[in-house]
């Protein structure tokens, strides 16, 4: 939750943005980590990468990841709840105020309850002990020797655990971690049926299962053995409302994690998927489909969410900020619903009571101010929420600089309009094929301004195994208005010679990064991480040493200098020899982003005739070439050649 004073200082105009975010965060999330304790999960294996702990087992990694997620949730979702349930263990539940009796072979290690430091410390202690002796885990969670717990029972235990512990309003999820693709010894169809029916039960209560199946080279995880028949599509990907709709269809976007990736995979699922908005997308009058919008890029998280406390000596009480609207002359408080909106007024002209409340008198019954609703309807120009297609443009027409805000991802909503998916998919495929973007006018929420957006198609990408790599959909990119575009400050400056450019190319070439462009995952916000590390240390009453903090956004100096250091030095030397080193700047101020150039063909012809094309400016040459439909790419020399060519021919 944002601190209350921040709430209050926000102008009304920004209301929607904030409410939006709060809505998003207000809903609680409850995760039950459901971890397999079968002997294979306890089997030690070597991890040569990790010097601290060269021998691990799956259970250790799973518990460690669970704890990391809990720690992260402490900050990212402090109101969320988690619980841990083991299965295939000899331990059975008797204590800890567990109201419902769980199925045999399942053990509720942590009730579903709000996050607490002490619980994390418990796991931490357990993990520390396991680090010393991996057998410790086996002692604590002895595996079941008499066979395996039927998955149906596991789901039933989950059901009861949720019923007892999860807040009603929360989104409820099970993170199922197992390495057994055949959970039962026998392939009894009844077990499958039972598992499926009990899972359906969970589903109908709004619980979704997010499976993390551990697959190793020695022991690949084969979905078709059991889970394909049990898991439902809505179990992982579909929206909650979609359940029961597409029973026959099994999108295979199930996370099968290599054990090394378990934590990363879990983080991926840390935040439950939630739509920001749901609006009709009108392709043409008479043809609208349903879409939902998801914020993949969100507003920047502020460093540290806090509230204020007042120290009464013996106790601390949370303080709340409250604001009221007051007619100061009268010290009369005005209800928010009676507040009207207008522009500044002043006392009658010439009168001198400067300090009094500005007022405006009109005849009784008249009202020169807007009500809240009137005010709000102004900005939307009476539009209702909609995404309206205006047409299509070349992909290249979406420029780098036409950006002001983060984008939103849209995905079809079959629940609003039947046929949305096929229409959406057809549009997506067509636009990808033709390399087009869409131009849309949209009002995605009431009380906002209508805006133009570029509709950027993202084709669906599956990896070689058919797993989803990138989902298909459109990015809605808000375009700036003319009002938002600033002029380029400078129109003229000194530019580099070819030699210097070459010197720069030399080291630029050496400094290319691996991977596919900018990868958000590689750059956690250092200020936030630094703050949270202190917060965590403070909560766990540990010392915080800022020297231990690694800022992963720091450039890799070692590599930079190793790979390009000498080339950079050479470039610097070349720069020092540049003519411009002795010059004093004369730079003229610019006007609008696009320069106005005028060309006079006669002048250019006379220059050409007298062999003085070099005296012309590049923009003049370009403009001339443009008017003759000649290419305008290249350096000045190229342009001059092309101009000469043209005159030769004509």
């Amino acid at each position: 939750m944002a601190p209350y004073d921040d709430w209050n200082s926000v102008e009304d105009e920004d209301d929607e943005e904030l409410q939006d975010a709060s809505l998003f965060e207000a809903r609680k999330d409850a995760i039950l980590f459901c971890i397999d304790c079968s002997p294979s999960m306890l089997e030690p294996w070597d991890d040569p990468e990790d010097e601290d702990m060269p021998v691990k087992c799956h259970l250790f990694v799973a518990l460690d990841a669970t704890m990391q997620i809990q720690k992260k949730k402490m900050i990212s979702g402090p109101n969320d709840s988690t619980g841990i349930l083991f299965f295939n263990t000899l331990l059975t539940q008797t204590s800890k105020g567990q109201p419902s009796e769980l199925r045999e072979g399942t053990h509720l290690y942590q009730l579903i309850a709000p996050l607490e430091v002490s619980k994390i410390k418990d796991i931490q202690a357990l993990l520390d002990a396991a680090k010393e002796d991996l057998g410790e885990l086996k002692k604590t969670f002895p595996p079941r020797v008499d066979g395996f717990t039927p998955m149906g029972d596991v789901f039933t235990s989950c059901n009861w655990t949720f019923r007892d512990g999860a807040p009603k309003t929360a989104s409820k999820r099970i993170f199922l971690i197992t390495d057994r693709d055949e959970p039962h010894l026998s392939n009894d169809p009844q077990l499958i049926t039972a598992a499926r029916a009990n899972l359906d039960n969970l589903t109908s209560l709004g619980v979704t299962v997010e499976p993390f199946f551990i697959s190793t080279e020695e022991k690949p995880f084969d979905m078709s053995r059991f889970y394909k028949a049990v898991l439902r599509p809505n179990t992982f990907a579909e929206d909650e409302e979609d359940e029961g709709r597409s029973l026959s269809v099994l999108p295979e976007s199930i996370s099968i994690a290599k054990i090394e990736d378990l934590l990363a995979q879990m983080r991926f699922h840390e935040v439950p998927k939630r739509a920001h908005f749901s609006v009709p997308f009108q392709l043409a009058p008479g043809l609208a489909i349903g879409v939902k919008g998801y914020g993949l890029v969100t507003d920047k998280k502020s460093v540290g969410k806090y509230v204020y406390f007042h120290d009464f000596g013996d106790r601390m009480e949370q303080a709340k900020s409250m604001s009221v609207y007051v007619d100061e002359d009268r010290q009369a408080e005005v209800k928010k619903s009676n507040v009207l909106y207008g522009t500044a007024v002043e006392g009658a002209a010439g009168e001198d009571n400067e300090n009094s409340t500005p007022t405006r008198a009109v005849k009784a019954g008249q009202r020169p101010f807007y009500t809240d609703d009137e005010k709000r309807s102004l900005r939307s120009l009476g539009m209702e929420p909609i995404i309206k297609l205006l047409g299509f443009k070349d992909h290249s027409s979406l420029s780098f600089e036409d950006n002001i805000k983060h984008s939103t991802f849209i995905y079809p909503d079959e629940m609003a309009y039947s046929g949305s998916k096929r229409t959406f998919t057809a549009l997506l495929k067509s636009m990808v094929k033709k390399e087009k973007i869409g131009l849309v006018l949209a009002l995605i929420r009431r009380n906002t301004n209508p805006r133009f957006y570029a509709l950027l198609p993202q084709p669906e990408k599956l990896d070689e195994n058919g797993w989803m790599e990138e989902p298909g959909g459109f990015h809605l990119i808000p375009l700036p208005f003319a009002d938002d575009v600033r002029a380029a400050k400078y129109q003229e400056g000194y530019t580099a010679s070819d030699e210097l450019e070459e010197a720069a190319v030399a080291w630029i070439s050496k400094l290319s990064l691996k991977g596919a462009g900018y990868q958000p995952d590689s750059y956690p916000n250092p200020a936030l991480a630094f703050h949270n590390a202190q917060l965590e240390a403070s909560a766990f009453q540990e010392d915080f040493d800022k020297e231990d903090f690694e800022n992963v956004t720091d450039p890799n100096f070692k590599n930079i200098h190793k790979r390009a250091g000498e080339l950079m030095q050479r470039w610097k030397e070349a720069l020092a020899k540049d003519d411009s080193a002795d010059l004093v700047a004369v730079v003229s101020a610019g006007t609008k982003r696009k320069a106005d150039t005028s060309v006079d063909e006669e002048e250019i012809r006379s220059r050409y005739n007298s062999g003085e094309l070099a005296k012309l400016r590049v923009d003049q040459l370009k403009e001339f070439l443009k008017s003759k439909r000649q290419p305008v790419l290249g350096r000045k020399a190229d342009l001059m050649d092309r101009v000469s060519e043209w005159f030769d021919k004509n």
Partner: protein
Amino acid sequence: MPAERAGYTVHMFVLDVCKSMGSPHTFTLPDGRTQEITNLQWALKYIKLKIQEMIYNGRKTDKCGVIIFGTEETNNIVNDKQGGYDNVTEYIPICTPNAGTLRKLDRLEPSATYGDPIDALIVATKTQEEWLGKKKWSKKITLVTDGQNIMELEDWESSVAKLNELEISFLLVGVDFDSDDPEYEYQEPDKSNVKRQNEQFWREFLDRVDNGNMGTLGHAMLYLSKPSIKETASNPMRSVLRIGDAEGKPDQAIEIDISTTKCTAVANNKAWKNFAVRMKEGTKDEEEILIGEDGSRLIVYAQLKKQAGWYVDTKEENDDDDDKKSIKKEDGDGDVKMEEDSDSETLVQVEKENLIRGYKYGTGYVPCADDSFLRLETKKGIDIIGFFDAAKFRRELSRGEVQYIWGDKDSPLQQVALSSIARGMAKKKVMAIARWVTKDGSDAKMGVLNPCLFDKVDCLLWAEMPFADDYRQYTFASLERLVTKKGEVLTEHPYLPTEEQCEAMDQFVKAMDLMKADKDPETGKHTEWFTPIESYNPGLHRVKQAMFHCAVVDDLATEPLDPPHPDTTKYFEPPPKVVKKSKEVVEDLIKKMNVKEVVKQPKRTRNEEHVHAADDDDEPLLLARKPTATFSMSQIPASQPTSPTKSKPEPKPKVEPGDSETEDESDDDTARKLAMKKAPSSSSKNPLPTPARSLSPRSHSVSQANIQSPAKPKQDDIAMDIDADIDPQRDPGRVIGRTRPLDDFKKIIEDPESYPSAKAKAMKDLGHVVTGIVLAPFASRREQELKDCLKEMRRAALLEDEVDVWNGFIQDLKDKCLFSTPGNKEFWEVTKKMGSGLITGVEARKLGADSDVGEDQAVEFLK
């Protein structure tokens, strides 16, 4: 003319207040009604809007003065010195205008006499000249007249000469002058000879003025509503671009001095100011009445101030929970304020300085006195992390405003250095990943640098990228690859477009292309339709227009806002040519895609109660009776094939509410017959979200569930799964059931994702349900619940602007209670006591809704 610069301008308005200006001007309101004002009021509106623009821009050096002619008395500096120039008055001396200036203009009335415009023009020129003295400011004069009076036309050439000598830009605005401007053509019918001559005179006059212009008032008003862009000069910020370790390896590391300026910056409206009607001292709802100079009754709107304070609730700990709830609720409004009825006496105001920050950590808070947490040390500048292939840039990640990065403007060397990098990057077709710290110690941002080569200067563009913390990756089901449970990949399915459909879409995309949909009026070349720099922010300019409007009128009800200027909405529809061209393609696409709107059902509830509820409810029985009432059941047409055969979507007619009443075998039929028309009970009438047949019938799994192994949970849990969440007491086509109508209703009304149409439907349906219950036997058992429903529905009607629905409903309820058999007179008494009557215009308008019910009518209604 001196170069235009913002401010440093004296603008004189010269206004005709002669008797003839009292003639009426009729205009049409947006709603079709017509209204009459005087020409003077019209002219004043123009001048006030011009002055309001100066007030809005808020520049001290934007001055104006007002000279009026045709006044009974004479008061001007020329008359003071040399006499003559009668009936001309300096009404507002040159000043920086404020809202008071506008109010003073409001007091002007047409006089009973006449004055000369040229005299007034000379007075304005002199007044301006004298005020300016030696200042070299821009000078403007705008003269507004109806041209209805005979003018003295001697020696007007010398006035022109004076205007030119002083480099005054002069605008003449004529009331109902003829205009042949293509944007605003106008011919006044029955024009008087005097006026015709005067118009002719002014044309000749303006021909000789160097900076002169002339127009008709209607055109000038239209021009005023034209959006204008506020040019903002970007202030360059100095910084440094670094590559490598400047401290550790200074020989190799690169540092370039740079200036950064904004490339895009979101323009916002000025904030609204808050007002309220001033109440009589000591009263809460009695308006304070003043008596104006002319004896009229006035009310006062006072500008409000927001007073914020910090409070600690010293109430006993035990109702901590309730407290939390009330805060939560306020949060939803985005405004934390005291609830009217909260125990404010337990609140103690505290000083903000004495408060300690507590950071939320799990369920608790970590207190942090004096902000003892360290901040990460950062160093001002932009550090390049590395370069990557520009083709791999993900445009959708760009998350903010874009900045220019220039070589330091005073250093050619630094410019050359930056230029070489920009060119090098362009040549290699790469972009850079970089980290930007705006000043020492401030939080870093990540971003991408893209080279940008202008004709005569090279620079980089910066686009901010999200941190890992601000980026989410959700899983989405595949759109193109559908797999059955048996592992077969489907090639045909209602979710998948057919080749025919794809072909129709291709045609559509082609037909709606905008790359050549516009035409350059000068060259005649086909150009791209819409670019950002041609598009105005419609909301921004609308709000600005509205702000100006309310500053210059006294009553928004009688003088409503003009429609938005067409320039602001010119891109709201695709270009007409494209629409025309694509008409057939669109029709074909609509036919082939066969998309149908789904009647929104309330969300399924999933409270744990359902699990328990199973025991004491005869769910399966009800279910058997009413198979159409649920999603899941409607997917079980027994005869459907159970294998995943594809099928063409079947068109499903949209169900008309009221048309879909089902036979209702409950015992409260009497009343329901009124609403019942026919009883189609076929499930196919209820359009499903997916038009195809169910491919894996739910009945299958149900039956399996029933033959489960002993290791199963209670049987009724399974039955629950089938139908627990949907009220069996809900009629098909209705979104509100009779079991818990209020819950159903709230779910829809409070869901931010609900469409307005869904809300209206919920309201209508709740009305039906309430009426049904009221008229059924034993209604009194549910009296409290019914009252709550009425309360909630009335509140929603006001908030959602569905007042008519409420008023229609309550009227109907009253009629049925009192006049139908058996009726329910007792309940109407209850309703009366609650005061849940008609919503009146006064009440509705408070919340911005509307109603044509008067106060008297409402009082009468509840009698």
